[in-house]
Each structure stands twice: as structure tokens, then as C-alpha cells.
């Protein structure tokens, strides 16, 4: 039990509680709720155990599903994101990402922003496509994916900078 895993566990429960107690009740313009729990997968340390990430993100998604009565869509989105996270890292930070220990919660460079944006977009696309599950409502689906992605990215960046450890 090192400090990294304690951090991960604390982040897991704090984000879960924040999502259920606060962010599921926001309802901006009547229907937009930011899905901040994605931040758990974004902030999970680069070189930590990948199996733990897969299992914990599945547990995270499933718990959200239980609270939202949404039948598995958040679990699916979370595990796909957790599994393809290394590929996204490689795409955004170049091949040698593992050696330079990328830290997401540092100053906002274009690469970090791109990474956060792509992860959120991938996750939201899967969640809303699976939730709506209909070709006839494709416009509504795209509209919802687009707006929720913007909202989640903004809220995520705000949260990252609010809880960023102070370095002088």
C-alpha cells in the first residue's frame, strides 16, 4: 500500500460521490450533466497497474449505472476508455510517453488539452451511442455528445486546477 494507490482509492470515491451527489443534478439547459468521473481514468498514473485500472473503472461505471438506471452504458464506456488509454497517450505525447512520466495535472499544454478532450470525446461517444441506440435519433445523439463533451472538458479542467498540488 503505497501513497499512489491510496491516492487512487481516494480519487475513486471522491469522484464517485461528486458525480452522484452533485454533477448528476446539474441539468444545464435542462439536460446536460457533466460526467466528471472520467477524470479518474484520466488522472490514473501512467505507469501503474493496468489490470487495476480496468477493474476499477468497470466498478466505477457500473456504480454510476446503478444510480442512473442506465443498464451498463457507463461501465462499457469506462472500460473501453481504460483499455485504449495507452494508445491515446502515445497519440498525444509521442512514442516515449512512458519514460518521461507524463503528469496530466500540470500546466495546460496543447498536448494535455488534446489528451483530455480526446478521452472525454471517446467516452461520451460510446456512452450516448449506447444509451440512445437508434439511427433515427442520430442528430439528437450528436448534439448531446458534442455539448456534453464541451461541458465535461471545461469542468474537468477546472477541477484539475482547483486540486492541483501547490509547487513553489
Amino acid at each position, binding site marked *: 500500500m503505497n501513497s499512489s494507490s491510496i491516492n487512487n482509492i481516494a480519487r475513486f470515491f471522491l469522484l464517485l460521490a461528486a458525480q452522484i451527489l452533485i454533477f448528476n443534478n446539474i441539468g444545464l439547459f435542462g439536460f446536460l450533466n457533466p460526467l466528471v468521473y472520467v477524470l479518474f481514468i484520466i488522472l490514473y498514473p501512467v505507469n501503474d497497474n493496468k489490470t487495476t485500472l480496468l477493474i476499477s473503472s468497470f466498478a466505477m461505471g457500473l456504480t454510476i449505472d446503478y444510480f442512473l*438506471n442506465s*443498464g451498463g*452504458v457507463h461501465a462499457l464506456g469506462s472500460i473501453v476508455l481504460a*483499455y485504449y488509454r495507452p494508445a491515446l497517450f502515445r497519440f498525444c505525447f509521442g512514442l516515449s510517453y512512458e519514460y518521461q512520466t507524463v503528469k496530466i495535472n500540470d500546466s495546460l499544454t496543447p498536448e494535455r488539452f488534446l489528451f483530455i478532450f480526446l478521452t472525454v470525446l471517446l467516452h461520451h461517444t460510446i456512452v450516448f451511442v449506447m*444509451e440512445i441506440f437508434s439511427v433515427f435519433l442520430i442528430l439528437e445523439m450528436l448534439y448531446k455528445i458534442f455539448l456534453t463533451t464541451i461541458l465535461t472538458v471545461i469542468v474537468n479542467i477546472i477541477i484539475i486546477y482547483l486540486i492541483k498540488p501547490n509547487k513553489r
Partner: protein
Amino acid sequence: MQQIFNYIFKNSNKLLFFLLLIFSFTMIIKSHSYHRSKLISSANFVSGGVYERMNTVDEYFSLKSSNEILAKENARLKMLLMNQIDTSKPLPLDIKGYNNTNLIPSKVIHNSYKARQNYITINSGFKAGIKENMGVINEKGIVGLIENTSENYATIQSILNSQSKINAKIKKFDHIGTLQWNCKNTGFVQLYDIPRLALIHKGDTIVTGGQSDIFPENINIGTIEKIYKDNETNYWTIDVKLFNDMTNLGYVYVLKTKDYEEIKALEDKSKKDE
């Protein structure tokens, strides 16, 4: 054999991923093909408990308005009591077939109205006698029907749910149609399959029809707001403005029809014979 084990150890993450992927896909497909929250629902000990705690905080903000609603209902009931001529008769209620029905009062602890499939969680379950497929109303009109129950909680499939289909009719004429929601506006639901020859007007009242064992006849739903011609069929499509504000629900009543068990047993039997 050794190679198989080597392969499994080497690709354990990939295998785990596909296992979880298949698992969540099965759940999603099941939830789309059948009642959505059969497997995963907020009617359980943990999420029910959390929603109940959240509700105790939320309640304070609406104390005044819920007091007003209760006072109004009290006044109505008192009026009925005082205007009664023969006190030995049971209280006359304005819904036909009510004498057959018990009402179980319950409190809404979580209400969703932003999704396409909306569910409401209430704080009484099968301990209070609530079972699946019972109707739920409040003092203004229809709310939905029970989908899942646990010991102390139950989820309601709200009428604002694209999977909900309710038998409804126009109060004046007895023309029967199907009530569904097009997932657009929380204040309106759509009534389909009303024949063209029905002389309907804006403002007519829509009530539940008598063709289901879930809702008794003549429970209020809403009024006609807009009438469309369906070009492909010979039917009207009607926008119904709900009496209920589905975004603001406090207490609801679960309808426990006395004949429910009997009807259910009968239906199960005829299903078996098919």
C-alpha cells in the same frame, strides 16, 4: 498446455478487457430489449439509501409548496366528508372503480426527467405491499408504473419514458388510444391511434382507459394541446399537456387493485396454454 498458459498470462489485460466488454454489452442489449432496469436499478439497498439521505436535505427547500399541496388536498377531502349525506357509506372518490383499489402512499426520493428512459425511486417496497406493474398516481394525475421492487424501495417507470405505453381515452367520447412520450418536452406526452372520426378539440381532457388492469378508468392525464394529422394512417396524433409537473413530485400513491392477483393468475394461465 504450457503455451496456452503463457498466452493467458501474457495477454491477461486483453482477456480481462474482452470479458468485461462482453459483460457490459450483454447488460446493455438486455436492457434495450426488455424493461431497461431489470438488471441494474436504483431499487437496492445502497443507491436507495443514498437517494433517501439526499432527499432529506432536498426536502427542506420545498417544505412550503408541499405544505400548500397537502393543505389543498386536506381541504378537498374535508369538503367531501362534510358534504356526505349517508355516513355509513364509504367515502365517494371521483374515480370509478376506486372501491376496488387500495392506495399506498409513498415518498419520491429520486426523480429523473432528463434522459430518454426516466425512472423515479420511491421509499417503500414489497414490505409495504408494492409489487411490479402496479400503477402510480398523485393528487393531480398519473405518474407511471412500478417496475422493480426491493425490500424498502421501488423504481417507477415514469410516463416520461420512451418504453412506457399507457392505454388512454378522451373523456367525452371513449375513443381509446395509446399514450407514449416522444422524449422532447417534460410537460407533454403524445396520444396515438385516435381515429379521425373523433370530434376532438383543443382543451379536451384525456383520462386513462379501462382496458388495462394497472390503472382504473378515468384517472386524469392531461388536456389536448395540439392535434396533428398522421399522413400515413387514418389516425390523429395528439400532444397532451400533462396535469402533473413531472419535474416536481413529492408524494405519490401506489394503486393496489384488489383483483390484481386474480387477473395476474388468469393471464399467466392463459399464457401457459398458448
